[in-house]
């Protein structure tokens, strides 16, 4: 059996296949099943990628905040690792949402970015806020302090995400459409099916990548612990300062 299969396990493989199927199905529905929007035309197809990425990244930041609360309550480093991985991944999804949104803005409005639009600017603020998470961790040498300060940051920033979302809802939109609202959204049925499939697909992608990262970090920690026990060079000790949490092998 290949080593990689042993390292990551069967459940993760099943989850990966499910993610690939749902994501491909969602994009296929968006391309071939969902009708072309009357106002924006074909460029509206970016919506099925951009909006799920934005929603999942914001949920990931909130999940990171919840894990950070768990860390402060229990002092269990596994929760710190979960928060770190979730925020790290959400940041990548957030960057992808910004880039795809910018491309969509150019196609629909003729401009790459509109500074007057609260939805766009607030999303950029959230991205920039979380972009300071890694430098914050890296600036603190003591691992215990690093985890604690990072957890406080993740909680405060995590609370800011829904507040920010609400504030944007209350503001008057300039040109950015409101897809999800209290009256059930303005999407027709065909578009809604494709859209929700894409949201589920992107959410599954997030969970799969998060699980891969977590498993890889645990495996690495266990290997280093084994190496120490066998008298090999202690990689954790010689690697110096790092933004990543130090994972225990247990």
């Amino acid at each position, binding site marked *: *059996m*290949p*080593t*990689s299969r*042993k*390292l990551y396990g069967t459940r993760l493989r099943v989850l990966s296949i499910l993610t690939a199927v749902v994501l491909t199905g969602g*994009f296929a529905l968006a391309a071939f099943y969902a009708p*072309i929007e009357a106002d924006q*035309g*074909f*460029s509206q*197809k*970016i919506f099925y*990628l*951009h909006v799920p*990425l934005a929603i999942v990244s914001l949920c990931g930041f909130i999940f990171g905040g919840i894990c950070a609360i768990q860390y402060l309550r229990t002092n269990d480093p596994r929760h710190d690792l979960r928060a770190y991985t979730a925020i790290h991944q959400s940041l*990548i999804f957030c*960057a*992808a949402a910004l*880039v*795809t949104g910018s*491309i*969509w803005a*150019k*196609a629909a409005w003729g401009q790459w970015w509109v500074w007057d639009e609260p939805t766009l600017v607030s999303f950029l603020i959230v991205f920039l806020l979380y972009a300071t998470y890694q430098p914050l961790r890296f600036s603190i040498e003591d691992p215990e302090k690093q985890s604690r300060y990072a957890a406080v940051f993740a909680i405060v920033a995590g609370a800011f995400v829904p507040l920010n979302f609400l504030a944007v809802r209350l503001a008057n939109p300039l040109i950015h459409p409101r897809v999800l609202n209290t009256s059930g959204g303005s999407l027709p049925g065909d578009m809604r099916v494709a859209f929700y499939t894409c949201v589920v697909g992107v959410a599954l992608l997030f969970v799969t*990548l998060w699980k*891969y*990262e977590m498993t*890889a970090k645990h*495996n*690495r920690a266990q*290997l*280093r612990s*084994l*190496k120490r026990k*066998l*008298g*090999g060079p202690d*990689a954790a000790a010689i690697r110096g300062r790092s933004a990543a949490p130090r994972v225990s092998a247990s």
Partner: protein
Amino acid sequence: MSDKLPTNGGYVAAAYLVFLAVLLVYFAIMATRASRLERELSEVNRLADEAIEGPSADPGAPDAEPVNAGGEA
């Protein structure tokens, strides 16, 4: 159906290609890490072999058990 790409089709293709590129870069980084992990695993295997063949010279020692997880023994 027309063979021509619809208006603004280039932007749609660019957005999805950006997503694909991000995914591919992510997968490449994860693959690099996995291969590094496998290298470390074989190093641990080597250290375990050395430990077994060392002072105790007891291949049936219980300490030898976990290091066979790499499947290379």
